[in-house]
């Protein structure tokens, strides 16, 4: 017997860590299979003890029907919808004065309580989990089963326009913190019976709901499988935002580029789902994540599709240009001024030289100082309360614009370059991508300081090497440019007329290639 045990242990130790963790979690769940007892007082005592008898735990004792059986409702006051509990549970039970001929609990469950979401549970930990997630538990004297009624409510934010991704033209709805609302928002967009929501539980202590969302029949099943596998590997106490889930399941943690899209917009999620992608909604955050993503997604906005194709394409080109400026402009300035002034037209060289006269620093120091100042201002603007935030604009404008120049610390042309770079870096529709660009910009600047144009091109090559090696859930990040999918170029390089965008992206390997309704696709 002992030998058998040892063998068992050995086989356990050879298992992979992910499996071990899931085993651990399962065993942790099974550690407290405390059954509900039949005595009401004991039950109430044990639930009080388990939750530490908090102040907001409400225990409403009552008698049921003409039989006068003792019962109790248990809930946490802030988590429930008071009206629902009072009208549909408490009132209905109290008003019901008939004799129960059959099983009273069954009777109450089926006939009395006017709530749709109702379950029977038999263990203490399930009861406590239900109470903590906003359900109301109903105990009845003499029963080892507890009714758990979903009447969650409490305060929550209403649907607002997403502040991080505002559009001029397009729906104004944004996700909220409640996951049920978010799921409903997606359902409202896609009335397809094949829209699937798979629920996971993440967080050892927070026990948050994480919902994986996809359209069956479009999505590559292997992708869902992979996301499923990665979500199971998450081992954390609490994920306060989908950003943390993202970091748990991303492909490369060393990359500055986000390997998933984060969005507050239901329309972006819906179009991505119809392109064969998978969205992950996390309880407690308005940010959904969409996977997989590519570098081209990073520079496209939902609005491109809502305008006519010509303007949409031009705006997209403008955005490519601004991404280029945001990354390269300061480094080009450094390289041209300090290494290759002969490349600039003569009169421009003279005006630059004239404006740099009296500036005590080399162009690198000047550029770095201005770039860092700008980043400081930006960060301060984000952190400050909105009311004081506007002062930052004034201070920043004065510091960057006037004082620094008139003090002779930086040249006016450097101010123009910093301002242009700043404006350009804000045109990127995705904040996480804009962050990556901003980071890379500094690498370019240092490279330009050391090797001039040659340094810039070497770093550019390196960024490209990184991009082609990066994958987002098995899809190369550089798609559709490398490997080339010419068919997808009409929605990446340009935004072709909407009638031509009838195919889902080829790189997604979707099951159903053609989007039947000729709808817009790909985010």
């Amino acid at each position, binding site marked *: 017997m002992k030998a058998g045990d040892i063998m068992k242990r050995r086989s356990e130790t050879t298992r992979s860590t992910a499996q071990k963790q899931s085993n651990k979690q399962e065993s942790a769940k099974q550690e407290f299979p405390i059954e509900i007892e039949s005595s009401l007082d004991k039950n109430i005592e044990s639930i009080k003890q388990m939750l530490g008898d908090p102040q907001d735990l409400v225990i409403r004792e009552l008698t049921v029907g003409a039989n006068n059986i003792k019962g109790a409702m248990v809930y946490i006051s802030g988590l429930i919808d008071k009206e629902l509990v009072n009208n549909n549970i408490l009132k209905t039970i109290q008003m019901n004065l008939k004799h129960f001929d059959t099983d009273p609990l069954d009777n109450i469950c089926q006939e009395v309580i006017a709530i749709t979401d109702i379950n029977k549970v038999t263990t203490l930990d399930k009861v406590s989990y239900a109470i903590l997630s906003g359900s109301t538990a109903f105990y009845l004297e003499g029963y080892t089963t507890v009714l758990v009624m979903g009447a969650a409510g409490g305060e929550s934010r209403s649907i607002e326009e997403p502040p991080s991704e505002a559009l001029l033209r397009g729906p104004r709805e944004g996700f909220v913190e409640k996951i049920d609302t978010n799921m409903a928002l997606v359902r409202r967009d896609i009335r397809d019976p094949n829209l699937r929501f798979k629920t996971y539980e993440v967080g050892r202590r927070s026990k948050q709901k994480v919902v994986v969302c996809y359209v069956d029949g479009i999505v590559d099943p292997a992708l869902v499988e992979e996301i499923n596998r990665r979500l199971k590997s998450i081992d954390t106490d609490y994920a306060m935002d989908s950003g943390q889930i993202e970091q748990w399941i991303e492909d490369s943690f060393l990359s500055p580029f986000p390997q998933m899209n984060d969005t507050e917009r239901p329309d972006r999620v819906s179009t991505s789902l119809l392109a064969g992608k998978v969205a992950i909604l996390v309880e407690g955050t308005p940010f959904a994540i969409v996977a997989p993503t590519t570098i081209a997604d990073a520079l496209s906005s939902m609005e491109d599709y809502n305008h006519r194709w010509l303007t949409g394409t031009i705006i997209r080109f403008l955005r490519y240009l601004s991404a280029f400026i945001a990354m390269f402009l300061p480094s080009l300035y450094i390289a041209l001024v300090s290494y290759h002034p*002969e*490349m600039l037209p003569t009169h421009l060289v003279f005006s630059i030289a004239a404006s740099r006269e009296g500036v005590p620093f080399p162009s690198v120091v000047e550029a770095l100082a201005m770039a860092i100042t700008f980043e400081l201002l930006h960060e301060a603007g984000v952190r400050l309360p909105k009311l004081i935030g506007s002062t930052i604009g004034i201070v920043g404008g004065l510091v960057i614009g006037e004082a620094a120049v008139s003090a002779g610390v930086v040249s006016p042309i450097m101010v123009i370059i910093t301002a242009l770079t700043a404006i350009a870096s804000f045109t990127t529709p995705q904040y996480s991508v804009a962050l990556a660009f901003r980071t890379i910009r500094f690498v370019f600047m240092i490279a330009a300081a050391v090797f001039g144009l040659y340094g*810039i*091109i*070497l770093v550019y*090559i*390196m960024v*490209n090497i990184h991009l082609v090696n990066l994958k987002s859930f098995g899809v190369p990040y550089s798609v559709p440019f*490398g490997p080339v999918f010419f068919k997808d170029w009409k929605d990446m390089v340009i935004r072709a007329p909407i009638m031509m965008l009838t195919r889902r992206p080829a790189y997604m390997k979707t099951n159903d290639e053609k989007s039947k309704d000729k709808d817009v696709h790909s985010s």
Partner: protein
Amino acid sequence: MKNFNYSDENIYDRDILIAIPSMVIAVATLFLPRELASVTIALDGILALLIGGSITILITWMIVKLASRFPQQSFLTYTSLLINKPIAVLLTCFFIWYGILVVSYEVRAIATISHLYLFDKTPIEVIALNFLLVVVYAVSGSRSAIFRLNALFFPIIILIAMFVTILSFRFVVIDNIYPILQTDVKGYIEATKKSVISLSGYGQIGFLLFYISLIRNPVKTPGKAVFGMSSVIGINLLIYTMCITVFGNLATSNLMFPTIELARTVEFPGGFFNRFESLFFVVWTIAIFTTSVIAFDAAVMGLQSLLPKVNKLKFVFFLSPCIYFLSSLPKHSPEVGDAGRLIGTYGLTLTVTVTIILWIIYIVRK
């Protein structure tokens, strides 16, 4: 499930289409007009380029066709199948050595030209080392990623070449194309030889013998390869014609790098950049880079087929110092040019001989 196979090293047909120009277009394109102009009269080099191009296309087609007869088999495997194991190992070693030589040459060439056109104070060794390090970074990644990288860079190379050609139209002197067809046969033969060496990328197309094995189902590959090779010939024809018509035959044959000089004549519209040739060369660095990466990777691939159990990174880190050492051997730029010619002759001879021998044995065995 092939979506998620992370060791997925398979590539597509169209990747070969792009890979051929990526590996062939490099330093040689920068001075091919000089080589042709020095042995032909006026614009007669076009004929040599066309003949040489046809020969190169034929070689490419033979290589790809042969390799695609053995899908998903490495060069070592099918060569030992056709001849025998020791000779297969020997041939693989030749190709590995050739790959190392090509990388060394490209690294040294880029350092020399940068020294000439970009900065004259930075030591050549430093420029070479930095370039080599970036190449090493690319080679240590996944193999299919290198092909994706080619796909990313290919449009840039085409664009810059087109740009130079279109903008230099202003300076075309029609008289430069006369007299027509006055070159003697010897000159044509010489020019054809030179254009074959250059168009085949110093014989680098031989590496296709290795790479076809990465394609899962290489049915259409020969056609795509021919198409890719034709694009190279097209670019070279354009550049050569522009060089001759702008500079004239005599000037072209005396310019060190006529293609870069062609970029020098260009005036950027709007007057944003003077000296366009610096920008042109910087972008051309990308073309030289892709060539070096493929040559390096081919050498690593050969080593991997010889010693399948050793980690790829070990080969990369073992080869890099050797390459750096080799690249520092030539003393000055004429020696670099000589080394290039030697490597080109060696590479082309190796590729052509191996292909023809393998074809003969393949037909006889069949």
